[in-house]
């Protein structure tokens, strides 16, 4: 048992070391904002009705995207922040030009709801698993003597898994 705990601790520390190393790599060089045009171009819609992102609109002779791209370039060159640029476009062309809901007012609901549902579902599933586990231990104790032995149980599982004797997934 002690050995198992020691080995578990070793693997956990190895995992933490790897995570730390990757995190350090991630943080390197993340200082400049050179790709703002590309980034913002993918956060705005073309207003010509093609339902494409401004950065991807490929209509030859599109009456809108050329001018809007120039406006975007000018705004970036003027030193405006991302938020200011998006607000400016929303004010000029309407909020439908923003490719995603904003983080304010009712739009916030669009962002919160998926995570709230995910959290609630995760909690619900965890509670369900716990309830089902408790129910099992109270209601029907293991009767198969062989199953009380972890080694034997594992051996059976291995047989079942490797031979596919009981079908199914």
């Amino acid at each position, binding site marked *: 048992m002690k050995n*198992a705990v020691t*080995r*578990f601790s070793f693997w956990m520390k190895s995992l933490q070391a*790897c995570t730390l190393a*990757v995190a350090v*790599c991630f943080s390197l060089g*993340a*200082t*400049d*904002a*050179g*790709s*703002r045009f590309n*980034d913002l171009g*993918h*956060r705005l*819609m073309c207003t010509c009705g093609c339902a*494409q*992102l401004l950065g*991807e609109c*490929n209509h*030859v002779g599109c009456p809108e995207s050329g001018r809007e791209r120039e406006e975007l370039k000018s705004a970036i060159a003027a030193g405006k922040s991302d938020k200011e640029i998006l607000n400016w476009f929303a004010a000029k062309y309407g*909020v*439908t*030009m923003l*490719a*995603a*809901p904003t983080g304010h*007012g009712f*739009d916030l609901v*669009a*962002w919160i709801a*998926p995570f709230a*549902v*995910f959290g609630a*579902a995760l909690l619900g*599933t965890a509670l*369900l*698993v716990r309830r*089902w*586990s408790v*129910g*099992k231990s109270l*209601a*029907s104790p293991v009767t198969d003597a062989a199953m009380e032995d*972890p080694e034997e*149980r*594992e*051996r059976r*599982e*291995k*047989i*079942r898994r*490797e*031979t*596919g*004797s009981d*079908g*199914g*997934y």
Partner: protein
Amino acid sequence: MAAFGSFALLIALALAAYNLLAGAIALRLIATGQPTAVSPERLADTARRAGIAGFVAVTAAAFALVWSVFANDFSITYIMEHSNRALPGAYKFSALWSGQEGSLLLWAWLLGIYGFVLRLTHKTDVKLYAYAGTIMAGIQVFFLAVLCFAAPPFALYTGQIPDDGNGLNPLLQYPEMVIHPPMLYLGYVGFSVPFAFALGALMMRYPGEKWIKITRGWTMVTWLFLTCGIFLGMHWAYAVLGWGGYWGWDPVENASFMPWLTGTAFLHSVMMQEKKGMMKSWNVWLIFSTFLLTLLGTLLTRAGLVSSVHAFAQSSIGNWFVAFMVIVLAVCIFTYVLQRKHLQSEHHLESLVSRESSFLFNNLVLLVACFVILWGTLFPILSEYVVGNKVTVGAPFYNRVAVPIGLFLLFLTGVGPLLPWRATSFRSIRRNFVVPVIALWATVIVCLVAGDTPWHDGAFDQGNFYALVAFALSVSVFTAILSEFLRGAGVISRQTGRNLLVGIWLLTRRNTRRYGGYIVHIGVVIIVIGLAGAAFNRNVESELGVHDKLAIGPYTLECVGFTQDSNLNYNSEYALLDVYRGGKKQFQMSPEKRVYLASDQPQTMVAIHSVPSWDLYVVYEGTNPDTGQPIIKAFLNPLVGWIWAGLVVLVFGTLLALVPSLSPATAALRVPAKSAPAEPALKGGSL
């Protein structure tokens, strides 16, 4: 022919209505045991035969419409609006589903085919099939009523009949459009069958899990059709729309994806019911939801509730679909409330770390993903209703919310198969997971060294970060699945004395369902790798005169000419581009732009050169009106071919899972052992 078609539809409606009423009465009489003048069994059989005759009638109607297209009968409004004389033969078939009325007729016809097969195989379980057939008839009544009264495909043109029609939408004049919609519809309509069985089994309090086994094949085939339909649509969007992508999170794309997600959840959770008798209510509601989502998808496609580029089939039949969905939901809720005691099951979980738990979490993630997509699709309507502002919910929203969920699902794809049923031990976890975890971190390091860093030009790049995680998880999941194959095949190899490849084959044949499922997972992994490649897409655009050059990645494109062509259906102009790599000419590409004569609409024909590492994707965008020279846009899209290759693997795995397994004894007979079994564990194979 218009009169014949209309009459056939009315006959089909009458037969479907008889099937529904007579079937319902007969099943009610059988359930209550009331003595009657007419044997309820005979009444039920007449209902079944009416269903078969209804299939013949709706087939006649579909035939009438196709005949009218080929006969250029422009007295029928639908033909006039969706075809013309110069339309090639294959596309005349696709005119059947290019418009509202025709596509609904296709739906009814496919429903008729499914119903026909179901009714012919009724001897498998006469009573359950009678219930399912009656419910299918109810669905068919709805679609035929819509066809007869709201969207008649044989409505006659009022006024002077034109000499030629308006032609088919140019977007649909592409080979894949001949098979993409039928595939998608086979998937949509096919979910009616497991729905009918689930509802029927609940109504009749069907004992045991046999209905699950009966519907398994139907559900998998349906799921396969829907999968192929979705991917064909992606490929069509990629090859025709000319924007370099294949998935735009358009509401109609989302509508096809949602039932796929719940259908996938059903295919997984149903195993819990088969093996452990758990989640009976959950499974019933999953299949109910899947069917309702197929209706919702159709509603979104047709009713114009949300803005979509798929505007070619919008109409005002939304109210019919809303009413039908309300009726279906009411019937489902009523039946469930009435019969819920029948679905009570004992839920036993021995451990949080087990196959059962992984299925629970798998279902959780799939359903949350479905909710996210439904939420994003409907939020503009909700926003307009609540605050009066219509907002756009596009790719940035889904990339931020749905992609992480998808990556978590990919993680579960690898973890699930490694966990045994009931419980596991730390030793087992370590043995099963150590290699995949090493593979994961090794991939992260290799990707970082190779330049897939989560920053770009100094700023955090979300796309690169997701791609890195996707690559690492994909390799890890692939390693996990491969190790499962190798472990099992190793035992069989030692037992039979055959090599490892034969061991893998025998292992797979012994449990096609499990190992077919693993192959499906490998297909998913390959697809994810292909999707992750989108993070590294790049493109250049330039006006090219003759002998002008355009460089992208390792390729240089040289314009050697541009020319024009025409036929009865369209005029086209295209560029001829020699493609060089390393200074040597490799191949020639000819992107094209067409203008269809009947509709006077332009259409792009993209030139694609696909190799495993990337696609060179070239679009002829037209000519500069000032210089008269062609404008060429070239994309280098890494790993796109993996998406289509993954689909092939996925289809193979699904087909394999549909093949009955050989028992270990049969498999041993087919491949005689060269030496006596030496693996002590296999002595317990019959435990």
